[in-house]
Structures are given as structure tokens and as C-alpha cells.
């Protein structure tokens, strides 16, 4: 008995009635394990809030010192992109909550598909974000150290969006291959994992497409604003429709990736936005706003990436039928994390995009 007690014993497959496999050996019962996990997660969320609070404090400090800078610089942010991303994240919170419910009710299929939806929304969010970022990099709307005074110096154009699309495209190709492989091998378990991953990586391109479309809308001027509003609505409704998007986006990937630049005229022309304030339009002024903007949204995006990682882990476990009405703590906890990430965005959106 004593010679084989390896410390990782709680990994065992055995479903003993006294101490089932999903209950770690140092816990007395399932309730204690669940409570511990939950408390641990809440504490982790507290640290996350404090982590972001540092940046919120910096924001508050600099906004109160230089309110005019924030008013000026926020006009370079595209509120439509922010709004669409808010919608995407809110929707993903819904699917996440549904996933938790499904786990509690042992509805395994719904669980996997809801997790897949959440993952896809996250990818789409990042797609839109990629358009937003690369557009700003093109214009030289960068943190203070690298900020290019708008309308004066010639910004440095680069194929940033293509570069950001490369990893996603690589993932899409890998997952597509995996999916086909599993389809041929009739491996249900692998299909359950590869499918959602493929859809999610394609949703990134859906996001990119959406972002490019909305961003190009800007260049036609404000007169057409209302007309575009309607178009966004359509796209937003279509956001959950992964299959349809997948086809469009697949096409897009195939045509756009190999070095072909997106036409630059789709982007905002810096000369059309109000740049009549030379006092503010410089490194140490507007640049600080963008420093804060990139830090806040960038770290938020890193949290989205982390969330995508753990959701993928949940999909794998769910595909293995590990969650059921007695053991769903991980789904619940990841759900909490995801709601927090969403919640932080709900603060970021008005604070950064809706200053005017």
C-alpha cells in the first residue's frame, strides 16, 4: 500500500464512492473542494481588479490633470468598433453563463457548443481589435515615445494587419487539418475539440473583416453615418452565425494573406479629423493618452487571450465528459473570470471611446 502512494494520486480514473477521482485527496468532500475553488477564484479576481486599478488610477490622474488631451485624443478612437466589441463581449458572457448552466445540468453537448461560441466571440473581439490597433500604428497614433504628430510628419505605413493575421491563419490551417483528420478517422472526441477551435480561428477573420468594413465607413465622412449604423446592425446579428462567416472569411484569408495589402484608402485620413490643436497634438500630450490606451486595452487583450486558453482547456475536459452536476467547479470559475474580463471592458469602452 505504502510503496505506490505517488503524490499525483488524485489524477486517478477510479470512481470510488468514498473519494471519486474528481475529488482531490486532501479535501474531505465535494463541497469543501467547490468552496475552496470558488473562494480562490474570487480572490484571484480581486487581484485582477487591483491589477487593472493601477491603470485606472493612472487614467484618472492624467485625465484630471489634462482633460483637454483626453477629449482631443479620443476622437481618433472609433466608437463604432468599440461598440461592436462591447456587443461581442456581452454576447460571449451570455454564452459563458449558459455554458455554466449546461455543466450544472450535465448537458454535455450544449456545454461544448456554448464554450465554442464563447471562444469564437473572443476571437472575433481580437479580430476587431487587430484592425483598430494596426490602423493606429499606420497613422502613428502611438504611445508618447513614438507618437507621430498628426497631419505634420508622414507616418510610417507597414503591413501590420497582415502580420497580425499570420498567427491566426497558421492556427486556422492547423485546426482545419486536424478537423479533417478527425473527420476521416471518425474520432468524435477530437472532432469535438478541433471543430470549435477551427470556428474560433476563423471568427478572428470575421472580426477583421467587420473591423475593416467599419473603419472604412469613416472615410466617407459623417454624412453617411446613419446608413452605416444599419449595416453594423446586420453584421452584429450575424456575429453568432459562424458557419456563414467561416466561408466568407476562409475566402478572405485565401486572397488576402500572401502579402497583399489592404487598400489604404479604407482607413481614416488623418487630415480629416480635427487636428487643429497643435498644443495637444504632440508626444508629451496626446501621446500619453495613447500610452494609457494601449496599456489598458493591450493588457485587457492579453486577458482575453488567457481566457481563450482556459476555455480551450475546458472544451478538452468537457469533450472528455469530465463535468457533470456534481463537478462543474472549473467551468463555474472560468465563467467568473470571463465575466470579469467582460466587466472591465464595459468600463474601458466609455472611458476611452466615449469622451466626446
Amino acid at each position, binding site marked *: *500500500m*505504502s510503496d*505506490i*502512494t*505517488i*503524490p*499525483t*494520486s*488524485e*489524477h*486517478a*480514473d*477510479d470512481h*470510488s464512492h*468514498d*473519494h471519486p*477521482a474528481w475529488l*482531490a*485527496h*486532501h*479535501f474531505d468532500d465535494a463541497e*469543501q473542494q467547490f*468552496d*475552496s475553488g470558488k*473562494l*480562490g477564484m474570487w*480572490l*484571484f479576481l*480581486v*487581484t*485582477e481588479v*487591483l*491589477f*487593472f*486599478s*493601477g*491603470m485606472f*488610477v*493612472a487614467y484618472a*490622474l*492624467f485625465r484630471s490633470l489634462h482633460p483637454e488631451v483626453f477629449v482631443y485624443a479620443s476622437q481618433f478612437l472609433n466608437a463604432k468598433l468599440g461598440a461592436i466589441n462591447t456587443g461581442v463581449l456581452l454576447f460571449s458572457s451570455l454564452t459563458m453563463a449558459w455554458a455554466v448552466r449546461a455543466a450544472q445540468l450535465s448537458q454535455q453537448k450544449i456545454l461544448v457548443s456554448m464554450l465554442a461560441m464563447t471562444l469564437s466571440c473572443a476571437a472575433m473581439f481580437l479580430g476587431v481589435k487587430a484592425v483598430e490597433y494596426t490602423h493606429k500604428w499606420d497613422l502613428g497614433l*502611438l*504611445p*508618447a*515615445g*513614438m507618437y507621430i504628430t498628426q497631419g505634420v510628419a508622414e507616418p510610417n505605413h507597414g503591413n501590420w494587419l497582415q502580420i497580425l493575421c499570420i498567427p491566426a491563419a497558421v492556427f486556422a490551417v492547423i485546426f482545419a487539418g486536424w478537423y479533417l483528420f478527425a473527420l476521416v478517422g471518425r474520432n468524435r472526441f477530437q472532432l469535438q475539440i478541433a471543430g470549435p477551435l477551427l470556428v474560433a480561428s476563423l471568427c478572428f477573420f470575421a472580426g477583421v473583416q467587420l473591423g475593416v468594413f467599419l473603419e472604412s465607413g469613416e472615410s466617407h465622412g459623417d454624412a453617411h453615418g446613419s446608413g452605416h449604423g444599419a449595416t453594423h446592425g446586420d453584421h452584429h446579428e450575424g456575429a453568432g452565425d459562424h458557419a456563414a462567416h467561416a466561408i466568407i472569411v476562409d475566402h478572405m484569408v485565401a486572397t488576402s494573406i500572401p502579402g497583399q495589402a489592404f487598400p489604404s484608402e479604407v482607413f481614416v485620413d488623418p487630415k480629416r479629423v480635427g487636428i487643429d490643436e497643435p498644443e495637444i497634438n504632440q*508626444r*508629451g*500630450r496626446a*501621446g*500619453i493618452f495613447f*500610452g*494609457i490606451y*494601449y*496599456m489598458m486595452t493591450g*493588457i485587457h487583450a492579453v486577458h482575453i487571450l488567457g481566457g481563450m486558453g482556459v476555455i480551450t482547456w475546458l472544451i478538452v475536459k468537457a469533450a472528455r465528459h469530465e463535468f457533470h452536476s456534481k463537478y462543474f467547479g472549473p467551468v463555474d470559475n472560468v465563467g467568473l473570470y470571463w465575466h470579469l474580463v467582460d466587466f472591465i471592458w464595459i468600463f474601458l469602452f466609455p472611458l476611452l471611446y466615449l469622451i466626446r
Partner: protein
Amino acid sequence: MSAVISKPLVAPVESAKEPGNFLTHTSGFLSWALTLDHKRIGLMYLVGVMSSFLLGGVLALVVRAHLFYADGAFLTLKQYNQIFTLHGAVMVFLFIIPSVPAALGNFLLPIMLGAKDVAFPRLNLSSFYLWVGGAIFFLVAMLTTGLDTGWTFYTPYSLETTGPVVLATMGVFILGFSSIFTGLNFIVTINTMRPPGMTWFRMPLLLWAIYSTSIIQVLATPVLGITMLLLMAERFLGIGIFDPKLNGDPVTYQHFFWFYSHPAVYIMILPAMGIISELMSVHSHKGIFGYRMIAYSSVAIALFGFLVWGHHMFTSGMANVTTIVFSALTFTVSIPSAIKVFNWLFTMYKGTVSLTTPMLYALSFMFLFTIGGLTGLPLGALSIDRHFHDTYFVVAHFHYVMMGGTLVAFLGGIFHWWPKMVGKMYNELGGQISAGIVFVGFNLTFLPQFVLGTRGMPRRYATYVPEFEFLHQLSTYGAFLLGIGLFVALGVLINSLFRGKKAPTNPWGGATLEWVCSSPPPHDNFSKPPVVGDPYDFRGLEYDAREGGYVRRK
């Protein structure tokens, strides 16, 4: 296979006779490297923090040796700056912060609580590896290219210097996560893993102290994380908020930094206070005086500790009102600390005081920490601080608290729980001698520094005006004496591993749960759920010569 394993856990009676302890339970490198046992993780931390302390200590001796002469003995100015930076950073981030909570806390917390392990054993192991990873990152960065910003990384110097600021702050960032996860784990363990009968007010005071510490770790360390990240971004991208060249504000950096780093001071001292509560009571063989006051004051210190960071910046040009408010809050922290000292003192009253090695360290702590605490009063007073700020008075003050407080308590704690950890008794006389040398050496090192400070010697100086030379030399002699004392302590401990007698279950007569399980404890701590009583009930504990330790008689 695992059915066999999990069975004994629910039927403890079967395994009651199981031989072996957590050290001999399994063997081989991997059984340690991948262990989830909190006791082994604690011991690995212990080795890690002791190695860091050795490094930091040698650097301290280099600094003191250099300052023997007014023009400096053997280092260039740049080398001196790099070495004091390395000394400070290693001592703070690699030694003091993880010393008591991560090393002793990991070992003791579940046992004292009566639990089988911490709530998240795998998270616990990953905190350890984060610590190792962060430490390697940090040391490699600093040793290869020489960081010279001081451990505080103040901007804008940290933005200009050629040192590896980004790598070092990355290391701090990783170490911060290690600290957060340890704190989180401990809070959850104490909240959810208490066995029946272990109510909040039956917890040993060390656990109250660690609990308060963990709250600070969880609440303050993320702010350090974001500060380090912003600093890295500032260096990489120039986000502008800390860099005056881009209209940023260096004082904002200081606020961010000290919002963590002042509570961090309490991360360092609170667990040490917890250790002293245990040592004073066990070695006086008498219950702790004013249990609730000590428990509440730990929590009070943890909370007030968050509100006083501004006293590091009294001369930085904050608004007068802000400065005054921070001064007032600073004085509030002194009260709970004073309460603790008086309570420890009266724990001895009408007790049976045995002057063992741990007790001598605890009494040293009382002496040194009282000096450290009282010299905080003039520093908190704004008018005096105008003169004392950034002088050797501050250096001496925080060494009395950090070293005379935390280090001495840590050593006392190690001597106290050493028999439990390794199952061997050390040479008592050797331990007592080490305590004596450390005490004398410490005072000789740092008392002259108070006078240097009042006379106006600024800190972080590689060279100084000749009239300070005599006091600096006294301090250097003291430092080497202190070094000898610490090596004697290390020698006594190492010697015990080879020549020590087998330790009894309860060598000191402690009443907390760790003295119920054998020395060293078995793999699962308690083969059957422990009977939880008052942690400071010493009635019936009597010395048994046959056993070599104390046994409880009814």
C-alpha cells in the same frame, strides 16, 4: 492503483501504523521536484531563501567593507551602486518576503491548522517554481549586466540607465505572482480547510499573522505587478506617464511603487510577529497574554499598512495636506505594534521561562524590534523627517525592523521548528552562542548608523566625508561579527543533520497541533483527524525524560 491509495485516507485507522515520514516517504530527485506535499515545498523554499540570504549577506559585507574608508576601500562608484542595489533587491524580493510565509508558512500552516495540505497543492508547487524562475531571471539579469537603480527602480533614473531594468522588473513581476499565489492559497486554506473544532479563535497566532500577511500579498502585490509592467512599457514604448521628458511624473511612479512596497514591509514583519507569539508562549510555558488583542492587531496592522505609503515621500514635494494626512496615518500603525510588544512581554509574567535558543532569539527580537519601532516615531514626525529622510537614520531604522525583527524571528523560528522539520535536535549551546553573537554583532552594526544619520550622512553613498569614518568603521566591525554569528547558526543546524539526536514529538512543550504529530511529520500530517483544543493550553504538558520531550498528562 489509486483506489489503493485513496482508501487509507478515508480509513485512517488502517494506516495508523504506517512507518516513515514525509522525508522518507518516497525518494529520488523527481519525488522532490514534482512533490505536491506542502512540507517538502516548504523545505525547498527554505533552501532557496537561505541561499538568497547567503548571497545578500555576502553582498552586505562587501558594502560594509568598502565603506571602511571615507574614500571607499576597493570598489568603483559604479560597482558600489550595483552591489547595494543587488543587496537590497535580493534581500527584499528573494529573502525577506518569502522567508517566513513561503518557507516556514508552507511547512507549518496546514499542520497547525490540522489539515492534510494547502487547498491548492499544485498551485503551491507552481508558486515555488515561479519563485525559482523569477529568482533566476532576476539574478542572471543583475549579475551579468549590473543593475544600478537601487531596489526601488525610481524613474527617471531607471529609464536612463544602461542596466537591465526590463529584465530585472520582469523578474520582480514573476516573483510577485509567486507571492500572490502563495497568499491566495493560504487564505483559502484557512477559510475552508479548518477541521471540526478549529474555530477562528482557536487558531495559533502564527496563523492569524500569516492570514493577515496573505491578505496584504493578495491586495498589494498586483499593484506592484502593474507598476513593473508600466515601467517596462515606459522603457520599451515610452508610454509617458512616468517620464518627465514626455510630460510624465516621477512622483506618480513613487506613489505606485510604495502603494505596494509599504504594505510589503508588513508582509515582511507580520509573520515574524506571529513567530514571536508562538516562541514567547511555548518557551515561557504559558498561554499568550491577550490572545485576541494580538490577533486583532495583526489584522489592524495589515489594514493600516495600506494607508501609509506616503511616508516614503515626505520630501518629494507632495501637497502639505497629503503629507500631514500620511503622517497621521503613519502614527496609527505604531499603536498595534506597541500592543503586541507589551503582550509578548507579559506572556513571560508568571510563566516558566526556559532560555533555549529559540527563546533567546525571541528575546533579541523584543530588544531589537522595540528599537526599530521606536525609531520610527521621529521618522514619522514631519519636521524631524526633513532632516532624517534618506539618511543613515532610515537605513538603521529599517534594518532594526527588517533584520533585527524579521531575520531574528525567522532564525528563532527555524531553531524552534527545526526538530520538527528534520527530526534532529541541534546542539543547544551552539545555538545559544549563535544567538549571542548575532545580538551583539547586530547592535554594533546598526547603532552607529543612527548617529551617522542624525549627523547627516546620506544613504547610498559610496564615499563620504572623513568625519563619519569612525562610526562607519564600528559598523563594519559589527557587520563582520554578525556574519560570524550567522555562520555559527548555520553550522549548528547543518551539524545537527549528521550528529543530532533524534527529536522527540514535542521537544519544547508546545500545545499547537504540529507538536502532536511525530517529528518529522508523516506524509499526510495526521493519520487520524486531530483533536483540536486551545492552542495555548499548557496544562498537563510535562517533561518526560524517557521520551526526551514533553507529553500531555491528563
